């Protein structure tokens, strides 16, 4: 029966509908509403375990997401850090970091919280996050800073740096400084031109850390400790300022 024929039919009204049929229609309506309403409520419920797991998955690149032949990264076992700053000193010496004008390549941040008259001190090591989507590289007008095609490390070509400081403004991690000796912007480069160039396997800061807070290595190499730590099931791993979309290669965990 097509619609034109149906239109010619006389309207029966709802008075002649059997009670059973009305009930079934209402039930179907309730069920449909329930499915949508239930779905909405579920989607608003916070499932912390699931979301943590999800975040961890998002922070750590999975197989096939490493664009560089060697993809260097670092994981910080944050709760092990005691703030001795041997890493900072080793970095300064290895990389000839000047002492003035806020120059540092790595630092230890400290947070003191008080709860019921107990003081809690936390330390957090920071350095350049060697991001996969580095804001500093994008903003540089002269390509003075770029991703090393072999290692993914963000490096500087000092002679091209005009000193506009846009990379400093763009960095979410305050990882860049003005190097008065080079008269250019400088930054941590995972010791690529010092220790890695000499064939050493660790950065100066990682090698100097007595608590083995900093684990440096190739994220692609399944035999490395960083790979094992990053892929330990159920461990909570986070990155700093994930909201900026910079996709950092420095990860944090408590272990």
């Amino acid at each position, binding site marked *: 029966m097509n619609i034109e024929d149906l239109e010619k039919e006389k309207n029966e009204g709802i008075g002649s509908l059997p009670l059973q049929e009305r009930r079934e229609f209402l039930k179907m309506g309730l069920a449909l509403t329930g499915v949508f309403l239930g779905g909405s409520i579920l989607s608003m419920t916070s499932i912390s375990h699931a979301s943590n797991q999800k975040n961890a998955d998002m922070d750590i690149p999975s197989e096939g997401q490493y664009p560089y032949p060697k993809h260097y990264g670092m994981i910080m076992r944050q709760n092990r850090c005691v703030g001795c700053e041997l890493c900072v000193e080793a970095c300064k010496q290895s990389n000839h970091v000047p002492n003035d004008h806020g120059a540092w390549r790595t630092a230890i*941040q*400290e947070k003191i919280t008080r709860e019921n008259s107990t003081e809690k001190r936390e330390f957090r090591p920071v350095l350049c996050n060697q991001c996969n989507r580095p804001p500093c590289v994008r903003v540089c007008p002269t390509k003075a800073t770029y991703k090393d095609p072999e290692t993914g490390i963000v490096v500087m070509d000092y002679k091209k740096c005009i000193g*506009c400081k846009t990379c400093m403004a763009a960095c*979410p*991690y305050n990882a860049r400084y003005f190097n008065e000796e080079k008269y250019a912007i400088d930054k941590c480069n995972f010791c690529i031109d010092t220790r890695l160039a000499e064939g050493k396997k660790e950065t100066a800061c990682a090698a100097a850390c007595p608590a083995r807070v900093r684990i440096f290595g190739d994220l692609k190499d399944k035999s490395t400790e960083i790979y094992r730590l990053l892929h330990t099931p159920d461990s909570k791993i986070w990155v700093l300022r994930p909201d900026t979309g910079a996709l950092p290669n420095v990860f944090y965990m408590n272990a």
Partner: protein
Amino acid sequence: MSNISLSAIFAETAEPCLATPEMNRATIFFLIVTVVGLSCGVLAFIFGHHTIYNNTREMPWGMLISTYAFWAITSTGLCMYAAMSHVFGGTRMGMISNRMVWMSIICIMGAFATIGVEIASPHRMLLYNIISPNPLSNIWWMGTLYGLAVGCMIIEFAGIVTGLGKLALVMGVFGALAEVLANSCLGGVFATLPARPYWYGAQLPIYFLTSAFLSGAAAAVLFNYLAYRIRNEKMSTTVHLAVKSAGKAMTLVLILYSVATFWRLVSFYVGGPELGRTAADALITGPLALNFWVLEVGIGLIIPIVLIILSRLENMSMLAFAGFLILVGQFVARYDLVVAGQNVPQNLGWDNLPTHFSYVPSFFEFGVIAGSIGVVAFGFLMGERVFGKTFTQKEHH
């Protein structure tokens, strides 16, 4: 007309009535201000930029960047109004458009003078901007486009004074296009930094363009008023109507800009990143509150609106004073924008850091600002003296 000598051109364009001892004194005074002021910036190349400017690792940009943005934005506005009246013709502002082109060039010179001593190694820029360009960089596009714009405008202006109307028109259009794109990229420099939530977002480039239309109109009103003031002459009816048109544009954009400022700040208080809200706090209740409420809002927005209403767009001195206050407000607004974007520590909560870093520009930074004002004032007076006739006669096309 193109084969006549330079002296003949200047004889036609110069304004002999301005060859007075007072004008000479004023011109020399601003030349001295320029030289002394910019010398403060030149010292940076001797003693180090990091030594004489109060910028830090955490706040790498300061008053020099905001002043650069202020002059560049004003230049874009002036160029846009001039181009619109040149291209579409028949608008009342056409009468004053030659002066606007000149002042647009002068304002961008003020901007270049400021950024030239702010950048640590401008000599590297001259080379590597060309041989190692990064097309993804807003800074690269901004610099290149402003360079292109000033080139086009200089040719345009040469066309105006030599009577090559077609050349002036074509170059004027290209210059204005380059200026608008450069202004947009200047907004983009800040707007595309997710690390700085106070800057990050799609509104900022449009906000910068709105500022350009506001500062441009205010500068057009002010400089035209001053041009007749120094001549001790009354504006002709057509010039009066032209300045009145600029005044109307200034009023309209003042309202648009106020609305944009209101929603821009409201947006930080309804959600979004904490860093953005804390930065907005700097303006509303924090260390920049005096700047914001008194200079940006009071002197830069509310008093000008009152003055414009009182002037009924007829009282030129009142209108010009409103234009001046708008420019003061815009100058402070650029400063507040640049500072608020950086003065909240990115690692707030660690290292016992203050909620807002303090930044007070150094003596040398103030010196450079004075120098840039000197550039614009000197350029204005020289323009009136050397090309005054070109500015007061009707358009060439």
